């Protein structure tokens, strides 16, 4: 079992800590082990890139650490909350207060404008009225979307939609940003720009980012790269030594 990250997991800077984390789907002969016995520690301020072939369990892992799925076994500690022990409503609160999601398909609410898509995240956290509206406008302005506040997703390009999604993810100043293939639906130029923006802002604000992607170019912005295969973490290495992972060396490499 590879501990991808701090072995102790008890350092005060740990935002995310998993131990023996497993998740299976189906029963009997259709049972599939999507995530197997994963130990992962992510420290505050890290930008962790999780890579691996399709079907390796990356997205399931992201869902588990984001509190969207309950593990079949093991523990997930997010900002001190034991997600495995919490009920659905409590996990929703933890997500709302501590996690920002950036999705591959942007997943904006199609009937709302760019501003409203950001504002709704603030509303869910208890901020409303002018305060929420102004905060949403400010954030979108920082992301270069100040001129597109009243545009609906259908009127925005893919890159612009992803910027709105990033603004929504950042709205409640979460400890952890989870991004699933954030560049997959963008051309290379916009994809790079969006990730630079995401990582730049989160780094400036001292936030932590976990990105799942097939895109090797993201290795440039990551502080650590984790390779995943067959539901297991195979290796972890600081950014800059990512090349071997592209070939799935399988060598465990704790920081």
């Amino acid at each position, binding site marked *: 079992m590879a501990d991808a990250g701090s072995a102790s997991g008890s350092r005060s800077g740990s935002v995310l800590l998993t131990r023996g984390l497993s998740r299976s789907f189906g029963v009997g002969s259709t049972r599939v082990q999507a995530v197997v016995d994963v130990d992962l520690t992510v420290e505050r301020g890290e930008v962790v890139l999780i890579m691996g072939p399709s079907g390796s369990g990356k997205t399931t892992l992201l869902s588990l650490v984001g509190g969207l799925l309950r593990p079949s076994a093991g523990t997930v500690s997010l900002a001190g909350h034991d997600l495995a022990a919490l009920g659905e409503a409590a996990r929703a*609160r933890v*997500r709302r*207060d501590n996690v920002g999601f950036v999705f591959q398909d942007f997943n904006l*609410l199609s*009937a709302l404008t760019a501003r*409203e898509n950001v504002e*709704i995240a603030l*509303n869910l956290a208890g901020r409303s009225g002018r305060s929420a509206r102004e905060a949403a406008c400010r954030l979108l302005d920082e992301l270069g979307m100040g001129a597109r506040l009243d545009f609906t997703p259908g009127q925005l390009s893919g890159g612009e939609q992803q910027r709105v999604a990033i603004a929504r993810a950042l709205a409640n100043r979460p400890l952890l940003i989870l991004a*699933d293939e954030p560049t997959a639906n963008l051309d290379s130029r916009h994809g790079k720009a969006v990730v630079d923006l995401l990582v730049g802002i989160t780094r400036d604000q001292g936030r932590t980012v976990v990105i799942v992607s097939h895109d090797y170019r993201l290795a440039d912005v990551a502080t650590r790269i984790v390779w995943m295969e067959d539901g297991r973490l195979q290796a972890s290495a600081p950014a800059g030594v990512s090349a071997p992972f592209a070939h799935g060396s399988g060598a465990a490499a704790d920081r």
Partner: protein
Amino acid sequence: MVPVARKNLLADKVRLLVSIGGVTFAVILVLVVRSLYEGYYQEIGAFVETMPVDIWVTQQSAGGLLYTSVLPASSGPQVAAVPGVRRVVAMDRQRLMLEHDGRSIDAFLMAFNVPSTAGGALGLPIPEPGQVAIDGSTAAKYGLKVGDTITARGVSFRLSTVTSMPMVALSGIAIVSWDDGQALLGVPGYVSSWLVNVAAGADVSRVAGTIGAQVPGVAAVPREQFASANRSQLSGTFIPIITVLLGVAFIVGSAVVGITIYTATTERWREFGVLKAIGASTGTLFRIVLQQSVLVCATGFAIGVPLTYLVNHFARRLVPEFITLVRWQDALLALGVVLGMALVASVIPVRRLARIDPAEVFRG
């Protein structure tokens, strides 16, 4: 909070309009049916209530204008002899078909044993022999005007007066002189009813009780109770029909709103999953769906109520006996119906939302 419900609905304006139209239709149906019932309910009692008569004396167990009543003429002096009775007027009535220009007119033919000059005492016009007075609704429906000839059982009458007196249970009222009434309806030695007025200071209920006790075979009923008895006859006939129509309106409205809310929810299934993923509680999602339903229903209600007045107005112009009365209680009933629709329409989407898996949003 960002008005997600309103925005979701406005995203498909055609579907929203169809849905609001469905609710509006249901509201109009509920209110028109109720107001029609209420209109007739008031009308049928109003005929009795507007006549300045204290006690209606009819054949026992014939306590209403819709029942046939036959009393021996000899009971008249017995009624008049009861202490406290000031005046007794004989009345003959029978439901029959009048004719005008080859058209049949359903009406109660009535005659009162008072001279034409004394009709005011009964609050009714009493025509001269050979003449007939007709209620306004019937006159409007058949295009009758003063001077027209109306035939009853082969006897022709000249229409002398069109009055504002109410109809009786969908049938018109035609009044002829006592002599003409006797000739047409009279069974020698019998009348239909006695209309009694009591002396000043006499207790109506007590006098009615005494008449019932002293005159064999009669029912003596104070005016208000007699009006209520007439209304009860109508209620017994119409309430089941109205209940069915209200049920139809409720089902139609609920189905239209339900389909709209269901499709508005399912086509945004993924977006509801996103909301759940970013921290919305299941209760918040329920509220959004319920707000959608309530918005559609409230708009339909707000449009449906004034439209009901228009529908009733134009229907009355086309069909004069379309007598309606919209009461605030019925508007409240319609509001209850639409709120019920909103709840019913939300049940299935809400049940599905409860099962939504926020992890679905990660699956492309």
